[in-house]
Protein backbone atom coordinates (compact mmCIF):
# COMPACT_ATOMS: atom_id res chain seq x y z
CA UNK A 1 0.00 0.00 0.00
CA UNK A 2 2.88 2.37 0.80
CA UNK A 3 4.33 2.03 -2.66
CA UNK A 4 0.91 2.42 -4.22
CA UNK A 5 0.53 5.68 -2.33
CA UNK A 6 3.94 6.70 -3.61
CA UNK A 7 2.86 5.94 -7.16
CA UNK A 8 -0.58 7.46 -6.87
CA UNK A 9 0.34 10.56 -4.91
CA UNK A 10 -2.41 12.96 -3.98
CA UNK A 11 -1.18 15.38 -6.63
CA UNK A 12 -1.51 12.71 -9.28
CA UNK A 13 -4.98 11.64 -8.20
CA UNK A 14 -6.02 15.27 -8.00
CA UNK A 15 -4.80 16.06 -11.53
CA UNK A 16 -6.39 12.84 -12.79
CA UNK A 17 -9.75 13.84 -11.35
CA UNK A 18 -9.50 17.51 -12.38
CA UNK A 19 -7.21 17.74 -15.37
CA UNK A 20 -5.85 21.21 -16.11
CA UNK A 21 -5.75 22.69 -19.60
CA UNK A 22 -8.02 19.95 -20.90
CA UNK A 23 -9.73 20.45 -24.24
CA UNK A 24 -9.14 21.97 -27.63
CA UNK A 25 -6.85 24.87 -28.31
CA UNK A 26 -7.90 27.47 -30.81
CA UNK A 27 -5.22 28.79 -33.13
CA UNK A 28 -2.82 26.01 -32.27
CA UNK A 29 0.48 26.18 -34.11
CA UNK A 30 1.70 22.72 -33.13
CA UNK A 31 -0.08 19.49 -32.54
CA UNK A 32 0.78 15.83 -31.98
CA UNK A 33 -0.90 12.63 -30.97
CA UNK A 34 0.23 9.94 -28.60
CA UNK A 35 -1.17 6.45 -28.37
CA UNK A 36 -0.20 3.41 -26.33
CA UNK A 37 -2.56 0.88 -27.87
CA UNK A 38 -1.69 -2.00 -25.56
CA UNK A 39 -2.83 0.02 -22.55
CA UNK A 40 -5.39 2.10 -24.34
CA UNK A 41 -3.80 5.45 -23.40
CA UNK A 42 -4.45 8.21 -25.92
CA UNK A 43 -3.51 11.88 -25.94
CA UNK A 44 -3.63 14.87 -28.21
CA UNK A 45 -1.38 17.79 -27.30
CA UNK A 46 -1.88 21.18 -28.90
CA UNK A 47 0.39 24.18 -28.52
CA UNK A 48 0.43 27.80 -29.52
CA UNK A 49 4.03 28.83 -29.86
CA UNK A 50 4.87 32.50 -30.44
CA UNK A 51 8.51 33.23 -31.11
CA UNK A 52 10.26 30.74 -28.89
CA UNK A 53 7.64 30.77 -26.15
CA UNK A 54 4.82 28.30 -25.51
CA UNK A 55 1.97 30.76 -25.11
CA UNK A 56 -0.69 28.16 -24.50
CA UNK A 57 -1.17 24.41 -24.35
CA UNK A 58 -4.11 22.04 -24.14
CA UNK A 59 -4.42 18.32 -24.09
CA UNK A 60 -7.24 15.85 -24.38
CA UNK A 61 -7.41 12.11 -24.25
CA UNK A 62 -8.24 9.15 -22.11
CA UNK A 63 -6.24 6.59 -20.26
CA UNK A 64 -4.90 5.59 -16.90
CA UNK A 65 -4.44 7.93 -13.96
CA UNK A 66 -0.69 8.12 -14.49
CA UNK A 67 -0.86 9.07 -18.16
CA UNK A 68 -3.62 11.62 -17.71
CA UNK A 69 -2.15 13.22 -14.58
CA UNK A 70 1.24 13.38 -16.23
CA UNK A 71 -0.27 15.24 -19.18
CA UNK A 72 -2.14 17.62 -16.91
CA UNK A 73 0.90 18.40 -14.75
CA UNK A 74 2.99 18.84 -17.88
CA UNK A 75 0.65 21.47 -19.29
CA UNK A 76 0.85 23.54 -16.11
CA UNK A 77 4.65 23.39 -16.18
CA UNK A 78 5.29 24.24 -19.79
CA UNK A 79 2.66 26.92 -20.26
CA UNK A 80 4.50 30.20 -20.68
CA UNK A 81 8.02 28.78 -20.80
CA UNK A 82 10.39 28.84 -23.75
CA UNK A 83 10.83 25.85 -26.02
CA UNK A 84 14.30 25.40 -24.61
CA UNK A 85 12.99 25.36 -21.05
CA UNK A 86 10.36 22.84 -22.06
CA UNK A 87 13.06 20.56 -23.45
CA UNK A 88 14.95 20.86 -20.17
CA UNK A 89 11.80 19.90 -18.24
CA UNK A 90 11.41 16.91 -20.55
CA UNK A 91 14.91 15.78 -19.65
CA UNK A 92 14.42 16.31 -15.94
CA UNK A 93 11.11 14.47 -15.93
CA UNK A 94 12.76 11.46 -17.54
CA UNK A 95 15.63 11.45 -15.11
CA UNK A 96 13.13 11.52 -12.25
CA UNK A 97 10.91 8.66 -13.44
CA UNK A 98 13.92 6.56 -14.33
CA UNK A 99 15.43 7.20 -10.90
CA UNK A 100 18.51 8.94 -12.26
CA UNK A 101 17.99 12.04 -10.20
CA UNK A 102 16.32 12.90 -6.92
CA UNK A 103 13.73 15.63 -7.33
CA UNK A 104 13.64 18.63 -5.06
CA UNK A 105 10.88 18.80 -2.51
CA UNK A 106 8.73 21.51 -4.01
CA UNK A 107 9.06 20.27 -7.56
CA UNK A 108 5.71 19.22 -9.05
CA UNK A 109 7.58 16.59 -11.00
CA UNK A 110 8.56 14.98 -7.71
CA UNK A 111 5.07 13.47 -7.65
CA UNK A 112 6.20 11.11 -10.41
CA UNK A 113 9.24 9.75 -8.62
CA UNK A 114 7.19 6.77 -7.39
CA UNK A 115 6.82 5.54 -10.95
CA UNK A 116 10.38 4.19 -10.89
CA UNK A 117 9.20 1.34 -8.63
CA UNK A 118 6.71 0.29 -11.32
CA UNK A 119 8.70 -0.35 -14.49
CA UNK A 120 5.62 -1.26 -16.51
CA UNK A 121 4.15 2.17 -15.77
CA UNK A 122 7.04 4.34 -16.92
CA UNK A 123 5.63 4.36 -20.42
CA UNK A 124 2.34 5.76 -19.11
CA UNK A 125 4.09 8.64 -17.37
CA UNK A 126 6.27 9.55 -20.32
CA UNK A 127 3.66 9.45 -23.10
CA UNK A 128 2.53 13.06 -22.63
CA UNK A 129 6.08 14.39 -22.61
CA UNK A 130 7.03 12.51 -25.75
CA UNK A 131 3.87 13.79 -27.41
CA UNK A 132 4.79 17.34 -26.39
CA UNK A 133 8.23 16.96 -27.87
CA UNK A 134 6.78 15.51 -31.07
CA UNK A 135 4.49 18.53 -31.32
CA UNK A 136 7.41 20.91 -30.87
CA UNK A 137 9.36 19.09 -33.55
CA UNK A 138 6.39 18.85 -35.92
CA UNK A 139 6.43 15.05 -35.96
CA UNK A 140 3.43 13.85 -37.92
CA UNK A 141 3.43 10.20 -36.85
CA UNK A 142 1.52 9.14 -33.78
CA UNK A 143 3.87 8.87 -30.81
CA UNK A 144 4.07 5.75 -28.69
CA UNK A 145 6.14 4.81 -25.68
CA UNK A 146 5.25 1.12 -25.65
Amino acid sequence: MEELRELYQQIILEHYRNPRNFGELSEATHRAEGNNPLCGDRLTVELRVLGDRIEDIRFRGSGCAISQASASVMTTLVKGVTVEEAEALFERFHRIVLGETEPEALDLLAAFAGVREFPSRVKCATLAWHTLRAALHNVAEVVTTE
Partner: protein
Amino acid sequence: MTPNTAVPGLLDQEVVAQWREDFPILRQTIYGKPLAYLDNAATTQKPRSVIETVARFYTEINSNVHRGVYYLSERATELYEEARRTVQRFLNAPSAAEIVFVRGTTEAINLVAHCLGRTRLREGSEILLSQMEHHSNIVPWQLVAEQTGAHLRVIPMNEHGELDLEQYEHLLTERTAIVAVVHVSNSLGTINPVAELVRQAHARGIPVLVDGAQAVAHLRVDVQELDCDFYAFSGHKVYGPTGIGVLYAKRRWLEEFPPYQGGGDMIRQVTFERTLYNEVPYKFEAGTPNIAGAIGLKAALDYVSALGIDTIATHEHALLRYATERLQAIPGLRIIGTARQKAAIISFVLSDIHPHDIGTFLDREGIAIRVGHHCTQPVMDFFGVPATSRASFALYNTPEEVDRLAAALQKVVEFFRV
Protein backbone atom coordinates in the same frame (compact mmCIF):
# COMPACT_ATOMS: atom_id res chain seq x y z
CA MET B 1 -16.01 -35.90 -4.56
CA THR B 2 -17.82 -33.88 -1.97
CA PRO B 3 -19.02 -30.49 -3.08
CA ASN B 4 -17.97 -27.27 -1.42
CA THR B 5 -20.91 -26.25 0.74
CA ALA B 6 -20.33 -22.52 0.52
CA VAL B 7 -20.32 -22.37 -3.27
CA PRO B 8 -22.58 -24.87 -5.01
CA GLY B 9 -20.86 -26.97 -7.65
CA LEU B 10 -17.38 -26.18 -6.38
CA LEU B 11 -15.19 -29.10 -5.54
CA ASP B 12 -14.10 -29.94 -2.07
CA GLN B 13 -11.40 -27.51 -1.09
CA GLU B 14 -9.10 -30.35 -0.18
CA VAL B 15 -9.23 -31.72 -3.70
CA VAL B 16 -8.32 -28.35 -5.15
CA ALA B 17 -5.67 -27.89 -2.47
CA GLN B 18 -4.15 -31.15 -3.64
CA TRP B 19 -4.22 -30.02 -7.25
CA ARG B 20 -2.50 -26.81 -6.21
CA GLU B 21 0.30 -28.88 -4.72
CA ASP B 22 1.05 -30.08 -8.24
CA PHE B 23 1.96 -26.53 -9.34
CA PRO B 24 5.22 -25.41 -7.71
CA ILE B 25 4.87 -21.80 -8.86
CA LEU B 26 1.69 -21.29 -6.86
CA ARG B 27 3.56 -21.54 -3.58
CA GLN B 28 5.25 -18.19 -3.85
CA THR B 29 4.28 -14.88 -2.40
CA ILE B 30 4.25 -11.65 -4.39
CA TYR B 31 4.93 -8.46 -2.42
CA GLY B 32 4.36 -10.55 0.68
CA LYS B 33 0.95 -11.85 -0.40
CA PRO B 34 0.19 -15.34 -1.66
CA LEU B 35 0.07 -15.40 -5.45
CA ALA B 36 -3.47 -15.47 -6.85
CA TYR B 37 -2.86 -16.28 -10.48
CA LEU B 38 -5.94 -15.22 -12.43
CA ASP B 39 -4.42 -14.76 -15.88
CA ASN B 40 -4.88 -18.26 -17.16
CA ALA B 41 -6.28 -17.17 -20.50
CA ALA B 42 -2.85 -15.66 -21.23
CA THR B 43 -1.01 -18.77 -20.17
CA THR B 44 -1.54 -21.48 -17.57
CA GLN B 45 0.94 -22.63 -14.95
CA LYS B 46 2.69 -25.97 -15.33
CA PRO B 47 2.25 -28.99 -13.10
CA ARG B 48 5.35 -30.72 -11.78
CA SER B 49 4.77 -33.67 -14.12
CA VAL B 50 5.20 -31.40 -17.15
CA ILE B 51 8.26 -29.67 -15.75
CA GLU B 52 9.86 -33.00 -14.85
CA THR B 53 9.01 -34.63 -18.16
CA VAL B 54 10.73 -31.83 -20.06
CA ALA B 55 13.73 -31.93 -17.70
CA ARG B 56 13.95 -35.71 -17.99
CA PHE B 57 13.91 -35.51 -21.76
CA TYR B 58 16.91 -33.19 -21.76
CA THR B 59 18.65 -35.10 -18.99
CA GLU B 60 18.23 -38.60 -20.32
CA ILE B 61 16.91 -38.81 -23.87
CA ASN B 62 17.81 -35.71 -25.85
CA SER B 63 18.56 -36.48 -29.51
CA ASN B 64 16.94 -35.66 -32.82
CA VAL B 65 13.87 -37.46 -34.15
CA HIS B 66 13.19 -39.39 -37.34
CA ARG B 67 16.83 -39.75 -38.34
CA GLY B 68 19.08 -41.52 -35.88
CA VAL B 69 19.57 -45.26 -35.97
CA TYR B 70 20.83 -45.35 -32.42
CA TYR B 71 19.00 -46.00 -29.19
CA LEU B 72 18.43 -42.42 -27.99
CA SER B 73 17.10 -41.17 -31.28
CA GLU B 74 14.74 -44.08 -31.57
CA ARG B 75 13.54 -43.42 -28.05
CA ALA B 76 13.04 -39.69 -28.76
CA THR B 77 11.13 -40.51 -31.94
CA GLU B 78 8.92 -42.95 -30.04
CA LEU B 79 8.10 -40.36 -27.39
CA TYR B 80 7.45 -37.66 -29.98
CA GLU B 81 5.06 -39.91 -31.91
CA GLU B 82 3.44 -41.08 -28.71
CA ALA B 83 2.74 -37.41 -27.95
CA ARG B 84 1.00 -37.13 -31.31
CA ARG B 85 -1.20 -40.11 -30.46
CA THR B 86 -2.02 -38.57 -27.08
CA VAL B 87 -3.17 -35.37 -28.80
CA GLN B 88 -5.19 -37.47 -31.24
CA ARG B 89 -7.02 -39.20 -28.39
CA PHE B 90 -7.45 -35.93 -26.49
CA LEU B 91 -9.26 -34.37 -29.45
CA ASN B 92 -10.80 -37.67 -30.53
CA ALA B 93 -9.30 -37.21 -33.98
CA PRO B 94 -9.72 -40.18 -36.33
CA SER B 95 -6.02 -40.49 -37.07
CA ALA B 96 -2.67 -39.38 -35.63
CA ALA B 97 -1.68 -38.39 -39.17
CA GLU B 98 -4.15 -35.52 -38.82
CA ILE B 99 -2.20 -34.00 -35.93
CA VAL B 100 0.43 -31.48 -37.02
CA PHE B 101 2.76 -30.09 -34.37
CA VAL B 102 3.28 -26.35 -34.70
CA ARG B 103 4.45 -23.51 -32.45
CA GLY B 104 0.98 -22.63 -31.27
CA THR B 105 -2.47 -21.50 -32.32
CA THR B 106 -1.01 -18.58 -34.23
CA GLU B 107 1.17 -20.75 -36.41
CA ALA B 108 -1.63 -23.27 -36.95
CA ILE B 109 -3.91 -20.54 -38.30
CA ASN B 110 -1.14 -19.06 -40.43
CA LEU B 111 -0.50 -22.49 -41.90
CA VAL B 112 -4.13 -22.98 -42.91
CA ALA B 113 -4.49 -19.42 -44.21
CA HIS B 114 -1.31 -19.71 -46.25
CA CYS B 115 -2.21 -23.07 -47.76
CA LEU B 116 -5.79 -22.12 -48.46
CA GLY B 117 -4.48 -18.96 -50.08
CA ARG B 118 -2.49 -21.08 -52.46
CA THR B 119 -5.22 -23.60 -53.23
CA ARG B 120 -8.68 -22.12 -52.84
CA LEU B 121 -8.72 -18.36 -52.41
CA ARG B 122 -9.06 -16.13 -55.43
CA GLU B 123 -10.27 -12.67 -56.37
CA GLY B 124 -13.67 -12.16 -54.76
CA SER B 125 -13.48 -15.13 -52.38
CA GLU B 126 -14.83 -14.43 -48.92
CA ILE B 127 -13.28 -15.35 -45.60
CA LEU B 128 -15.91 -15.36 -42.89
CA LEU B 129 -14.69 -14.50 -39.39
CA SER B 130 -16.54 -13.45 -36.27
CA GLN B 131 -16.48 -10.12 -34.52
CA MET B 132 -14.86 -11.66 -31.45
CA GLU B 133 -11.75 -13.11 -33.06
CA HIS B 134 -8.29 -12.84 -31.53
CA HIS B 135 -5.89 -10.89 -33.74
CA SER B 136 -4.23 -14.20 -34.60
CA ASN B 137 -7.42 -15.27 -36.35
CA ILE B 138 -7.71 -11.97 -38.22
CA VAL B 139 -4.27 -10.91 -39.37
CA PRO B 140 -3.21 -14.15 -41.13
CA TRP B 141 -6.42 -13.91 -43.18
CA GLN B 142 -5.76 -10.28 -44.01
CA LEU B 143 -2.33 -11.25 -45.26
CA VAL B 144 -3.69 -13.89 -47.65
CA ALA B 145 -6.61 -11.68 -48.63
CA GLU B 146 -4.12 -9.07 -49.75
CA GLN B 147 -2.26 -11.64 -51.83
CA THR B 148 -5.29 -13.27 -53.41
CA GLY B 149 -7.89 -10.51 -53.71
CA ALA B 150 -10.19 -12.25 -51.23
CA HIS B 151 -12.26 -10.24 -48.74
CA LEU B 152 -12.96 -10.56 -45.04
CA ARG B 153 -16.56 -10.76 -43.85
CA VAL B 154 -17.59 -10.57 -40.22
CA ILE B 155 -20.31 -12.40 -38.28
CA PRO B 156 -21.71 -9.76 -35.91
CA MET B 157 -22.48 -10.31 -32.23
CA ASN B 158 -25.05 -8.91 -29.81
CA GLU B 159 -24.46 -6.86 -26.67
CA HIS B 160 -24.03 -10.03 -24.61
CA GLY B 161 -21.19 -11.17 -26.81
CA GLU B 162 -23.14 -13.89 -28.62
CA LEU B 163 -22.86 -14.44 -32.35
CA ASP B 164 -25.83 -13.47 -34.49
CA LEU B 165 -26.75 -16.81 -36.04
CA GLU B 166 -29.35 -15.32 -38.34
CA GLN B 167 -26.79 -13.01 -39.87
CA TYR B 168 -24.39 -15.92 -40.07
CA GLU B 169 -26.75 -17.81 -42.32
CA HIS B 170 -27.00 -14.84 -44.67
CA LEU B 171 -23.25 -14.40 -44.74
CA LEU B 172 -22.66 -17.93 -46.01
CA THR B 173 -22.64 -17.61 -49.78
CA GLU B 174 -21.16 -19.34 -52.79
CA ARG B 175 -18.22 -16.94 -52.45
CA THR B 176 -17.41 -18.05 -48.90
CA ALA B 177 -14.17 -20.02 -49.01
CA ILE B 178 -13.76 -20.62 -45.28
CA VAL B 179 -15.33 -19.88 -41.94
CA ALA B 180 -12.82 -19.22 -39.14
CA VAL B 181 -14.26 -18.83 -35.64
CA VAL B 182 -13.09 -18.90 -32.08
CA HIS B 183 -14.45 -21.73 -29.91
CA VAL B 184 -14.18 -19.79 -26.64
CA SER B 185 -13.59 -16.03 -26.79
CA ASN B 186 -10.53 -14.96 -24.84
CA SER B 187 -11.90 -11.51 -24.04
CA LEU B 188 -15.57 -12.35 -23.43
CA GLY B 189 -15.59 -15.97 -22.36
CA THR B 190 -18.38 -16.79 -24.83
CA ILE B 191 -18.57 -20.44 -25.89
CA ASN B 192 -19.66 -20.38 -29.50
CA PRO B 193 -22.02 -23.05 -30.88
CA VAL B 194 -19.32 -24.44 -33.09
CA ALA B 195 -21.05 -27.68 -34.11
CA GLU B 196 -24.04 -25.69 -35.35
CA LEU B 197 -21.82 -23.23 -37.24
CA VAL B 198 -20.03 -26.14 -38.88
CA ARG B 199 -23.27 -27.86 -39.81
CA GLN B 200 -24.55 -24.78 -41.62
CA ALA B 201 -21.26 -24.14 -43.40
CA HIS B 202 -20.95 -27.77 -44.48
CA ALA B 203 -24.47 -27.68 -45.88
CA ARG B 204 -22.95 -25.27 -48.41
CA GLY B 205 -19.70 -27.16 -48.77
CA ILE B 206 -17.67 -24.56 -46.85
CA PRO B 207 -14.79 -25.69 -44.59
CA VAL B 208 -14.50 -24.39 -41.02
CA LEU B 209 -11.46 -23.60 -38.88
CA VAL B 210 -11.93 -23.44 -35.13
CA ASP B 211 -9.54 -21.47 -32.90
CA GLY B 212 -9.54 -23.63 -29.80
CA ALA B 213 -6.85 -21.75 -27.85
CA GLN B 214 -9.22 -21.00 -24.96
CA ALA B 215 -11.30 -24.14 -25.21
CA VAL B 216 -9.16 -27.24 -24.74
CA ALA B 217 -8.27 -26.53 -21.11
CA HIS B 218 -11.86 -25.81 -20.12
CA LEU B 219 -14.24 -28.11 -21.95
CA ARG B 220 -14.31 -31.46 -23.67
CA VAL B 221 -13.36 -31.10 -27.33
CA ASP B 222 -14.27 -33.82 -29.81
CA VAL B 223 -13.33 -32.83 -33.33
CA GLN B 224 -15.45 -35.59 -34.83
CA GLU B 225 -18.50 -34.37 -32.98
CA LEU B 226 -17.77 -30.77 -33.99
CA ASP B 227 -16.97 -32.04 -37.49
CA CYS B 228 -14.74 -28.98 -38.08
CA ASP B 229 -12.11 -29.18 -40.80
CA PHE B 230 -9.38 -27.54 -38.73
CA TYR B 231 -8.87 -27.16 -35.00
CA ALA B 232 -6.00 -25.14 -33.55
CA PHE B 233 -4.71 -24.86 -29.99
CA SER B 234 -1.60 -23.91 -27.97
CA GLY B 235 0.10 -26.19 -25.46
CA HIS B 236 0.88 -23.40 -23.01
CA LYS B 237 -2.79 -22.63 -22.40
CA VAL B 238 -3.50 -26.19 -21.35
CA TYR B 239 -0.76 -26.56 -18.72
CA GLY B 240 1.90 -27.49 -21.31
CA PRO B 241 5.10 -25.75 -22.42
CA THR B 242 5.27 -22.67 -24.63
CA GLY B 243 6.39 -23.05 -28.23
CA ILE B 244 4.32 -26.14 -28.94
CA GLY B 245 0.84 -26.25 -30.39
CA VAL B 246 -1.39 -28.34 -32.55
CA LEU B 247 -3.19 -28.12 -35.82
CA TYR B 248 -5.77 -30.83 -36.29
CA ALA B 249 -6.83 -30.99 -39.94
CA LYS B 250 -8.97 -33.50 -41.76
CA ARG B 251 -6.71 -35.66 -43.81
CA ARG B 252 -8.09 -34.60 -47.18
CA TRP B 253 -6.97 -31.03 -46.50
CA LEU B 254 -3.49 -32.07 -45.50
CA GLU B 255 -3.28 -34.14 -48.68
CA GLU B 256 -4.57 -31.29 -50.82
CA PHE B 257 -2.44 -28.55 -49.27
CA PRO B 258 1.05 -27.77 -50.53
CA PRO B 259 3.75 -27.68 -47.83
CA TYR B 260 3.76 -24.61 -45.59
CA GLN B 261 7.52 -24.45 -45.09
CA GLY B 262 10.34 -26.29 -46.78
CA GLY B 263 13.27 -27.99 -45.11
CA GLY B 264 14.43 -31.20 -43.56
CA ASP B 265 12.01 -33.86 -42.34
CA MET B 266 9.22 -32.76 -44.67
CA ILE B 267 10.77 -34.38 -47.71
CA ARG B 268 11.21 -37.86 -49.06
CA GLN B 269 13.73 -37.18 -51.76
CA VAL B 270 15.46 -34.01 -52.84
CA THR B 271 17.34 -33.20 -56.01
CA PHE B 272 17.90 -29.70 -57.36
CA GLU B 273 15.28 -30.36 -60.00
CA ARG B 274 12.54 -31.73 -57.87
CA THR B 275 11.51 -32.69 -54.37
CA LEU B 276 9.18 -35.45 -53.28
CA TYR B 277 7.35 -34.47 -50.13
CA ASN B 278 6.98 -36.64 -47.13
CA GLU B 279 3.56 -38.04 -46.20
CA VAL B 280 1.19 -36.25 -43.85
CA PRO B 281 1.62 -34.93 -41.24
CA TYR B 282 5.40 -34.74 -41.76
CA LYS B 283 4.91 -32.73 -44.94
CA PHE B 284 3.99 -29.85 -42.59
CA GLU B 285 6.75 -30.29 -40.03
CA ALA B 286 9.82 -28.87 -41.72
CA GLY B 287 12.99 -28.80 -39.67
CA THR B 288 13.74 -30.15 -36.21
CA PRO B 289 10.51 -29.85 -34.26
CA ASN B 290 10.00 -28.83 -30.64
CA ILE B 291 10.54 -32.36 -29.39
CA ALA B 292 10.68 -31.59 -25.67
CA GLY B 293 7.65 -29.35 -26.12
CA ALA B 294 5.59 -32.10 -27.72
CA ILE B 295 6.54 -34.56 -25.00
CA GLY B 296 5.77 -31.93 -22.35
CA LEU B 297 2.42 -31.31 -24.00
CA LYS B 298 1.66 -35.01 -23.74
CA ALA B 299 2.41 -34.85 -20.01
CA ALA B 300 0.04 -31.88 -19.71
CA LEU B 301 -2.79 -33.60 -21.56
CA ASP B 302 -2.24 -36.73 -19.47
CA TYR B 303 -2.48 -34.57 -16.36
CA VAL B 304 -5.75 -33.00 -17.50
CA SER B 305 -7.17 -36.39 -18.48
CA ALA B 306 -6.22 -37.92 -15.14
CA LEU B 307 -8.11 -35.18 -13.28
CA GLY B 308 -10.91 -35.37 -15.83
CA ILE B 309 -11.75 -32.48 -18.12
CA ASP B 310 -15.40 -32.66 -17.05
CA THR B 311 -14.42 -32.41 -13.38
CA ILE B 312 -12.24 -29.42 -14.18
CA ALA B 313 -15.01 -27.81 -16.23
CA THR B 314 -17.54 -28.23 -13.43
CA HIS B 315 -15.19 -26.67 -10.90
CA GLU B 316 -14.33 -23.73 -13.15
CA HIS B 317 -17.96 -23.18 -14.01
CA ALA B 318 -18.91 -22.94 -10.35
CA LEU B 319 -15.99 -20.56 -9.82
CA LEU B 320 -17.16 -18.42 -12.74
CA ARG B 321 -20.69 -18.25 -11.35
CA TYR B 322 -19.39 -17.33 -7.92
CA ALA B 323 -17.03 -14.69 -9.30
CA THR B 324 -19.78 -13.22 -11.47
CA GLU B 325 -21.97 -12.87 -8.40
CA ARG B 326 -19.24 -11.33 -6.28
CA LEU B 327 -18.05 -8.91 -8.94
CA GLN B 328 -21.54 -7.80 -9.93
CA ALA B 329 -22.10 -6.70 -6.35
CA ILE B 330 -19.33 -4.09 -6.66
CA PRO B 331 -20.84 -0.67 -7.41
CA GLY B 332 -19.81 0.64 -10.82
CA LEU B 333 -18.55 -2.71 -12.09
CA ARG B 334 -19.83 -3.78 -15.48
CA ILE B 335 -19.11 -7.22 -16.87
CA ILE B 336 -18.23 -7.23 -20.57
CA GLY B 337 -19.42 -10.50 -22.07
CA THR B 338 -22.60 -11.91 -20.59
CA ALA B 339 -23.32 -14.77 -22.98
CA ARG B 340 -25.49 -17.61 -21.72
CA GLN B 341 -22.71 -20.07 -22.51
CA LYS B 342 -19.44 -18.95 -20.95
CA ALA B 343 -16.20 -20.49 -19.80
CA ALA B 344 -13.76 -19.45 -17.09
CA ILE B 345 -13.33 -15.79 -18.15
CA ILE B 346 -14.66 -12.52 -16.72
CA SER B 347 -13.87 -9.24 -18.44
CA PHE B 348 -15.03 -6.09 -16.74
CA VAL B 349 -14.75 -2.35 -16.50
CA LEU B 350 -14.98 -0.50 -13.20
CA SER B 351 -16.51 2.99 -13.24
CA ASP B 352 -14.06 5.29 -14.98
CA ILE B 353 -11.04 3.64 -13.46
CA HIS B 354 -8.60 2.65 -16.14
CA PRO B 355 -7.81 -1.09 -16.28
CA HIS B 356 -4.12 -0.31 -16.13
CA ASP B 357 -4.53 1.34 -12.73
CA ILE B 358 -6.60 -1.62 -11.56
CA GLY B 359 -3.93 -4.06 -12.74
CA THR B 360 -1.13 -2.25 -10.90
CA PHE B 361 -3.22 -2.07 -7.74
CA LEU B 362 -4.12 -5.77 -7.80
CA ASP B 363 -0.54 -6.72 -8.52
CA ARG B 364 0.48 -5.25 -5.18
CA GLU B 365 -2.16 -7.47 -3.59
CA GLY B 366 -0.51 -10.49 -5.17
CA ILE B 367 -3.33 -10.86 -7.69
CA ALA B 368 -2.33 -11.35 -11.33
CA ILE B 369 -4.96 -10.35 -13.88
CA ARG B 370 -4.67 -9.14 -17.44
CA VAL B 371 -5.54 -5.61 -18.47
CA GLY B 372 -5.66 -4.24 -21.99
CA HIS B 373 -7.38 -5.12 -25.23
CA HIS B 374 -6.48 -8.84 -25.05
CA CYS B 375 -5.55 -8.88 -28.74
CA THR B 376 -9.21 -8.35 -29.61
CA GLN B 377 -9.43 -4.69 -30.54
CA PRO B 378 -12.64 -5.15 -32.57
CA VAL B 379 -14.32 -6.46 -29.40
CA MET B 380 -13.16 -3.39 -27.45
CA ASP B 381 -14.48 -1.13 -30.23
CA PHE B 382 -17.81 -2.94 -30.19
CA PHE B 383 -18.27 -2.36 -26.46
CA GLY B 384 -16.87 1.18 -26.70
CA VAL B 385 -14.07 0.64 -24.19
CA PRO B 386 -10.32 1.07 -24.77
CA ALA B 387 -9.48 -1.88 -22.58
CA THR B 388 -10.89 -4.19 -19.96
CA SER B 389 -9.63 -6.00 -16.90
CA ARG B 390 -9.89 -9.75 -17.16
CA ALA B 391 -9.79 -12.50 -14.59
CA SER B 392 -9.53 -15.98 -16.07
CA PHE B 393 -9.65 -19.21 -14.09
CA ALA B 394 -7.96 -22.57 -14.16
CA LEU B 395 -8.37 -25.79 -12.24
CA TYR B 396 -6.23 -24.56 -9.32
CA ASN B 397 -8.18 -21.40 -8.58
CA THR B 398 -10.27 -21.17 -5.44
CA PRO B 399 -13.24 -19.19 -4.11
CA GLU B 400 -10.84 -17.58 -1.62
CA GLU B 401 -8.95 -16.10 -4.55
CA VAL B 402 -12.22 -14.77 -5.94
CA ASP B 403 -12.93 -13.25 -2.52
CA ARG B 404 -9.52 -11.59 -2.53
CA LEU B 405 -10.17 -10.25 -6.04
CA ALA B 406 -13.52 -8.81 -4.99
CA ALA B 407 -12.07 -7.28 -1.83
CA ALA B 408 -9.17 -5.74 -3.74
CA LEU B 409 -11.52 -4.28 -6.35
CA GLN B 410 -13.54 -2.74 -3.55
CA LYS B 411 -10.33 -1.11 -2.31
CA VAL B 412 -9.58 0.11 -5.83
CA VAL B 413 -12.94 1.85 -5.92
CA GLU B 414 -12.22 3.61 -2.64
CA PHE B 415 -8.68 4.52 -3.65
CA PHE B 416 -9.60 6.07 -6.97
CA ARG B 417 -13.00 7.42 -5.93
CA VAL B 418 -13.57 10.41 -8.13
